[in-house]
């Protein structure tokens, strides 16, 4: 059967890698040049497989010299297959187009080198076939995964650095012109901080999130300790209820909360938010910390009890110091929930001076306010959480894995 031969796989992977990199670099070309390039795939569908065959047939004498020759051959083939003008562009862009083709060839060859390495052109065993497929999809999957994850963030940043004119003139130009001065480049940010009170929103968000973390930890640490260590009556019902409450979404509670908080006059205030947020995070924190405390050995507690420490002292002097990393994780996770919370802030806050960032960005979502302001707001809200994430990734990841099924 032909699909058991290495040659077939070389043709297949040559074709797919060819198409992938051709699309990739056409997009890059459009974005960097800002000129129309039409997507032509028919030529690469022949050249790619040819490159695949070339690779697998010449595997025995691979050397740097050979690699270079192969890349030049592919570049040449792409060039002549398009009659010297593969992207139908004007002369002044020829050099960039040539660079793009060179890069396309380089990446096709590199990808082939990765997925076809040590594959014989003849009949293959089942093991080799599957190894090939895994290697092949591994590379392709990794690239696609990273691209898909990062593109919206890239767009967010780039859009925030543009001005209205350039956005309308050419939405495709997503390069940043670094020659412009600081003021024009960060115009949207300056605008947000001077005219839209974003400094206040930032402070409000910090106040609300930090207070939520403190209140949550203050109540959930003793609660979790009690559930993990003490013989509380109906413990099972407690734990079950904690999980159940942790699953109740705020949309189910928002109408009564709106009604109650309106009638007692707490709705349009940060204090109201600080009252509601911990109630939604305490069950999560309790659930996570209970797990951590149960994992600590109870013999230490017993020894401390023998030495005459009270339970409160045990919590303060033994349980908390021993589970510091866990508490940091839980704290970060709660901070993230409070920082990112949208619905309650959106329903509760009407007064622009007490907006949190989420609420503030929502107020930018109108047709009168330019897009780049909206995206600058999004960047401002994302940066603090990213800084925390990058610095304390280890803690946040363990927090996510312990309680992260919420959200």
């Amino acid at each position, binding site marked *: 059967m032909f699909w058991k031969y290495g040659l077939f796989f070389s043709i297949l992977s040559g074709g797919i890698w060819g198409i992938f990199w051709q699309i990739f670099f056409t997009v890059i070309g459009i974005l960097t040049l800002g000129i129309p390039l039409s*997507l032509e795939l028919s030529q690469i569908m022949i050249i790619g497989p040819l490159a695949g065959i070339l690779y697998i047939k010449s595997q025995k004498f691979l050397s740097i010299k050979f690699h270079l020759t192969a890349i030049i051959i592919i570049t040449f083939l792409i060039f002549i297959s398009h009659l010297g003008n593969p992207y139908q562009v004007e002369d002044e862009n020829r050099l960039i187009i040539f660079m793009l083709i060179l890069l396309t060839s380089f990446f096709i060859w590199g990808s082939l080198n990765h997925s076809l390495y040590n594959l014989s052109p003849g009949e293959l065993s089942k*093991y080799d*076939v599957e*190894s090939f497929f895994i290697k092949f999809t*591994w590379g392709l999957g*990794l690239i696609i*995964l990273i691209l898909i*994850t*990062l593109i*919206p*963030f890239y767009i*967010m940043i780039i859009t925030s650095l543009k001005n209205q004119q350039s*956005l309308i003139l050419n*939405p*495709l130009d*997503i390069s940043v012109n670094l020659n412009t001065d600081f003021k024009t480049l960060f115009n949207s940010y300056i605008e947000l901080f001077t005219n839209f009170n974003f400094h206040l929103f930032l402070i409000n968000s910090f106040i609300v999130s930090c207070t939520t973390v403190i209140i949550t930890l203050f109540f959930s640490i*003793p*609660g979790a300790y*009690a*559930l993990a260590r*003490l*013989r509380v*009556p109906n413990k099972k019902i407690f734990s079950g209820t904690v*999980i159940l*409450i942790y*699953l*109740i*979404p705020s*949309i*189910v*509670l*928002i*109408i*009564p*909360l709106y*009604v*109650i908080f309106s009638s007692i006059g707490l709705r349009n205030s940060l204090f109201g938010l600080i*009252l*509601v947020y*911990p*109630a939604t995070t305490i*069950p999560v924190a*309790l659930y996570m910390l209970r797990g951590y405390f149960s994992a600590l050995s109870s013999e230490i507690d017993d020894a401390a009890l023998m030495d005459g420490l009270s*339970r409160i002292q045990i919590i303060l002097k033994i349980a908390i110091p021993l589970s510091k990393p866990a508490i940091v994780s839980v704290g970060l996770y709660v901070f993230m929930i409070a*920082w*990112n919370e*949208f*619905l309650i802030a959106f329903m509760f806050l009407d007064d622009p001076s007490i907006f949190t960032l989420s609420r503030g*960005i*929502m107020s930018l979502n109108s047709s009168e306010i330019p*897009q780049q302001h909206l*995206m600058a707001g*999004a960047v401002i*809200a*994302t940066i603090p959480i*990213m800084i925390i994430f990058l610095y304390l990734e280890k803690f946040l*990841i363990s927090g*996510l894995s312990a309680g*992260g099924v919420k*959200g």
Partner: protein
Amino acid sequence: MTNIIKKSKNTLLEKEKKLGLILLLPTILIVLSVVIFPLLANFWISFKPVSLGDLRPPKLIVKERIKGKLSDKNQIAEIQYRYRNSSIKYDLENVIIKDIIPNGFTVKDLQPTQFCRLKLKELICNLNNVSSRSSGKIILKVHKNDQWQEELDNPKKTKPFVTFSSKNVLTSFEFNTENFKKVFSASEFFEVLKVSFYYTIFGTAGALLVGLIAAQILQKSFRGRSIVRGLLLFPYVSPVIAVAFAWVILFDPYSGIVNSMLVQMNVIDKPINFFGQKYTDIIIFGYVFKFPLALSMVIAFEIWRYFPLSFLFILARMQSFPEEVYDAAKIDGASPLQQFYYISLPFLIGIMSILFLLRFIWTFNKFDDIFLLTGGNAGTRTFTVNVYEQAFAISNLGAGAAVAVVIFIFLLTFSLLFMRYSKKETF
């Protein structure tokens, strides 16, 4: 002897119980007041015809005015009280207006006589019923007498005192099932049900599948793996409002990059409104079928944002698995796919089913994402968005609460299923 031991043990136990309850008490109180009480209140509201306007309680507005000059001894002046029911919906009952008439005045006449009387210097008007939107006047004809003092005897100095009772729809004991009838009979109910389940099932399964693939890819060690692992978590940790708007701008029909790109590359001839178009026709082998575009986009966003979570869990599980098992399988000649199918998958199936159930519940409850992307338009209205739509867009709080009750019943069913299932699996 045994008795003493038993007794002392008991007191220790009692002490522990007490302490445990004290430690848990704040949590219980907070959760009771901010979760359980509102939950019950939601049931209460769902059986009542409450609209957003009912949150402002009805009020009797009374204004006091003086007509004519009070300074002249023989001249008759008027003290007028104008009252008005501010509510456009509710009548006020047992309305009583009281005011003190200063000593320096003699009252000549009092209108309307059937409601008002003077008791010494106190004016008492028992108006009984003031129907909605209605208003009226109380007129006192007065003149100055000998006791009059310039500074003390300004009738406006004492504010009229008003008492009334009104029917408050929120606290009354009138219930009806109108809201539920409305929710269930509306033709859109089944549409909403269908959309909710499409969104939940495909969103959850998609995120789980992409997470599984991502975990498989990242299990192999390569240079920069920990950086890539961090990158892949970005969508999940960033604020939903930021990433949702980034998607909206990315797919914008006028200035979005995806549309301009597709037009430039001649893939489509005119821009597509990804988040605003309910269906798009897709032609496969000559058959035209309607593809729910906006819903699919919202599902894609859900997958993009939540795959990191499944990925994190599955990767953590896979890394706890002993490597030797794979080595042994290799020696026995198991191919990579066989290794995945017969070793990894059975090992992961437990965590994946738990993840599926939990994520299913959370996706079903998801509000922010859809609300920010489409506002529930173009065939993306799930139950959660419907709560907002009914309660705050149409301002029918009762109907919104009724939808919330429906969500809660679904949630309860799913959670009970989850708890029964998770007992077998250690999470």
